[in-house]
């Protein structure tokens, strides 16, 4: 390829783990061109972040660059002394990170943080500096920048924080922008806006963008070229159009296929309701003042009604803070309902005493979002799965319990020797299977799945969803599936409910909601979903 036209070229890059001399990145070549977004896709641990850090020469101490060149024009960045490299970072290359909340300094105003890079690399001071920061904030779409400039990071929303990060990165007009999962921590509607902003800036400023992501939808939506990274190597590189039309490698095919299909819907099923929630409200008191009196309430769930039949999957969709998890917790009895009623199989179950509740604990189970934190790290997998059986008295003989654990492990397709292993020895996908086995152990009739796949890599996500669907068919379990990701809903749910600010704004069959949404919020959510298969 013609290196003259490239803004930044990485050639034959390999990164080595110093302690074991193991190569984490092997012989990687990347050409970044002005005005173009190059997406580096791969699952966690594939080496994509390490590649970008190596390009900036910001590798953590345990790693070092084994070989390769990073050419910016005629200069090899890897051959420069550290002092020269510092003038290049920020000025000619800039980076934005995944979580803006932790990348911004909470005790400095936005102005001071954006101005910091400008002060370091330019001679702008005083009013000129303020003007420059204002125009930068304007460019990244911060409304009313003159006033917001003096805000602290916590006074801004997550999307605005990410915009500030981008403004900081752009402050010295770099030629290369490295964006490491810039939208993973954001809600879908905001993700779309941020991606559009990056796209717009790439065009208007002739930026060469290296976009690192695990989300094929994001690639499809914003990138021009794509490189697939797998176990430290780039196994395929192509233009986005060509890549999605005809991927060459089987692994790339899998990544694309892992994106759920958007065109097949599950037909709604007709059955009497198993769970019915009427006008449920969960309010959290906001205390303050001298004697910590209740001054106000946070209306996490504010008058929600829904029903769920045996064997049905109801997807509860909404952005973070919409109250969907609180609703799930209230059904589980982990949160106290302020008003309203929850009926399960004809019996009212909210406000039951501890003893009376036990019977329903067996029938309603839960799977959490983060598999790593939902397992006690000091208990073996077998003990984790058996805990519910023991506590709810499902299986009292130890021998039978062990046999049951073994059969459950087989059902979720884990090897039998897992029972003796500890959570840290398993991968995220395996742990989520253990969580499913744990829930199934007490033979529940309703499983509340609280974002069970959002912490998992795409290819594993599909496997876990398939497993859940299969178990539902076999056991006729009802599922309340809480998610922020509309893209997985079609092949999964019979019905969908969209939640916003504690209220259910729209419910209906999946086809109806995804095909012809009525509420403007649902329409906005749908429009923001990055799609791979158009």
């Amino acid at each position, binding site marked *: 390829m013609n290196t003259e036209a490239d803004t930044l070229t990485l050639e034959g890059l390999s990164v080595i783990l110093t302690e074991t001399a193991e190569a984490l990145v092997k012989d990687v070549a990347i050409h970044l061109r002005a005005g173009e977004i190059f997406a580096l896709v791969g699952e966690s641990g594939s080496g994509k972040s390490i590649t970008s850090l190596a390009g900036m020469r910001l590798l*953590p*101490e*345990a*790693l070092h660059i084994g070989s390769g060149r990073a050419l910016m024009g005629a200069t090899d960045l890897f051959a420069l002394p550290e002092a020269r490299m510092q003038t290049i970072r920020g000025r000619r290359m800039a980076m934005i990170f995944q979580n803006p909340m932790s990348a911004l300094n909470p005790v400095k105003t936005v102005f001071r943080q954006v101005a910091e890079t400008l002060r370091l690399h330019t001679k702008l001071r005083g009013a000129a500096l303020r003007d420059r920061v204002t125009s930068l904030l304007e460019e990244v779409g911060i409304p009313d920048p003159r006033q917001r400039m003096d805000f602290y990071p916590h006074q801004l929303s997550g999307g605005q924080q990410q915009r500030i990060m981008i403004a900081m990165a752009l402050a010295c007009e770099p030629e290369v922008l490295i964006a490491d999962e810039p939208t993973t921590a954001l809600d879908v509607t905001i993700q779309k806006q941020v991606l559009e902003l990056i796209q717009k800036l790439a065009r208007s400023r002739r930026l060469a963008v290296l976009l690192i992501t695990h989300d094929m939808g994001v690639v499809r939506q914003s990138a021009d070229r794509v490189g697939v990274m797998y176990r430290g190597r780039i196994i395929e590189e192509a233009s986005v159009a060509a890549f999605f039309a005809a991927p060459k490698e089987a692994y790339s095919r899998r990544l694309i296929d892992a994106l759920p299909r958007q065109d097949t819907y599950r037909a709604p099923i007709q059955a009497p309701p198993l769970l019915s929630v009427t006008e449920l409200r969960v309010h959290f008191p906001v205390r303050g003042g001298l004697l910590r009196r209740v001054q106000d309430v946070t209306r996490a769930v504010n008058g929600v009604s829904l029903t769920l039949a045996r064997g049905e999957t109801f997807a509860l969709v909404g952005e973070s803070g919409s109250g969907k998890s609180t609703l799930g917790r209230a059904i*589980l*009895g*982990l949160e106290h309902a302020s008003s309203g009623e929850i009926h399960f199989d004809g019996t009212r179950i909210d406000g039951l005493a*501890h003893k009376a*509740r*036990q019977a329903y*604990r*067996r029938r*309603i*189970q*839960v799977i*959490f*979002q*983060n*598999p790593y*934190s*939902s*397992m*006690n*790290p*000091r*208990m073996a997998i077998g003990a*984790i799965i058996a*805990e*519910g059986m023991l*506590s*709810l008295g499902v299986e009292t003989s130890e021998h039978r319990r062990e046999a049951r654990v073994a059969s459950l492990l087989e059902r979720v397709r884990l090897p039998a020797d897992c029972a003796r292993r*500890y959570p*840290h020895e398993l991968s995220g996908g395996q742990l989520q299977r253990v*969580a499913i086995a*744990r829930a199934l152990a*007490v033979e529940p009739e309703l499983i509340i799945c609280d974002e069970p796949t959002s912490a998992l890599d795409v290819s594993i996500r599909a496997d876990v969803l398939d497993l859940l669907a299969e178990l539902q068919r076999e056991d006729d379990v009802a599922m309340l599936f809480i998610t922020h990701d509309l893209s997985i809903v079609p092949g999964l749910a019979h019905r969908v409910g969209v939640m916003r600010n504690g209220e259910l704004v729209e419910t209906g069959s999946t086809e109806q909601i995804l095909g012809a949404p009525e509420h403007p919020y649902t329409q906005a959510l749908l429009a923001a979903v990055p799609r791979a298969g158009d």
Partner: protein
Amino acid sequence: MKPVILWSDALIFLLVAALVLFFWRLRRDPQTRDRWRQVFASRLGMAAFTVILAYVGVALLDSLHFRRALPPPDGVSTGEVFYDNQVSSVLDTLTAGMGERFERTYSAPFALRSFEKQTLKDEAGNTVRDFPPLRHAGAQLADPTEKWADVVRRSAPALGGGLALAVLLILPQWWLLRGSSLPWASSWLVQGILACTAVWLVSISRHYHVLGTDLGGADVLYQSLKGVRTGVLIGALSTLIMLPIAVTLGVCAGYFKGWVDDAVQYLYTTLSSIPGILLIAAAVLLFQVYIDLNPDAFPTGLEKADAKFIALCFILGVTSWSTLCRLIRAETLKISQLGYVQAAHAFGVSHGRILLRHILPNTVHIILITFVLDFSALVLAEAVLSYIGVGVDPSMGSWGNMINGARSELSREPAIWWTLSGAFLFMFLLVLSANLFADLVRDAFDPRTRLGPEAA
């Protein structure tokens, strides 16, 4: 001979037994075993642990107390046996009477004459003021100029004996631990050095005061050795009294929240806003009054001192739990929001079981780290308290008391440096090893330090 079991003796043995049991149980958890292996895989950890064990060993030997049977008084031939009012320990026997060779007052290390002049009568019967020769040190010498030659001559067999003891100690270990991947050699090296030093000190101190004598003419080396038990006990006992309070209150506050949390927070905020030394001083003086009013409860002086000592440990423990309690409360707040505790709730697991099975095991790293860190802090606290006069009873050997006794003597010319140095040396070695060991334990158990390399 009649064995005497003091309260603190019983406690120290109980404590050692409990610790051994605790670590034995921890071994079953493979994760914990891995982390301990990491601690002991470093040579430094091995050496530091050996030194700590040596201190604990000395403390244990010093905790086996007995009263010697006295020879029947002249003219009395009843079968009744009288016992010495003085309580001795196995350590006293092993040091071959090091503590019984009193001089009149100060003498420098290896000195043959007293440090202070005295009015003497010479052979001619004239009264002169001169440094009198010591009663015990160098009594075997015909010519004082041969002193160093004598020391060297006596060192050779002593060191030989030390080496023999070292070989006796190390050989069975070597036999048992063949094929182990841990750096036992560093432990053996430290053991060898300690064995040689110990035998040499004991045999040389038969004829010299290696670290000199103090104001009352007592051997400083012996005093420092007696301080070991006090230091180890105060460190371990106070931490052990503090642990259950801190752990129970911290876990309950973090788990139950609400009014329980308010009450616990109120308690430790109040406690930590009272100056610690003042509180301790008041409590110690109160207990002193109790002892004075009830002389019958404590027949020997040692028992009186012992009761006072346990009270001190108790007070130190009761006043120092707030830091650990805060840490555990915070950790529990975090853990109780994690998925596995939520899942346990969903399974209807009882509160007690959640606390025991899910929360407590996940705060163990904090408890361990605090235990080893606080240990050295408490050894130092004892020295400070004894220095201001509210610490251990003066009749009980302790480093704090030695420092307290030596403080004014530092300002005289020529200075008396050895009492302070003796206490300093022993305390330094213990606190240094405890701190080095604590560092390694923290590195192995603190999830944050372990995250570092993994995140990279």
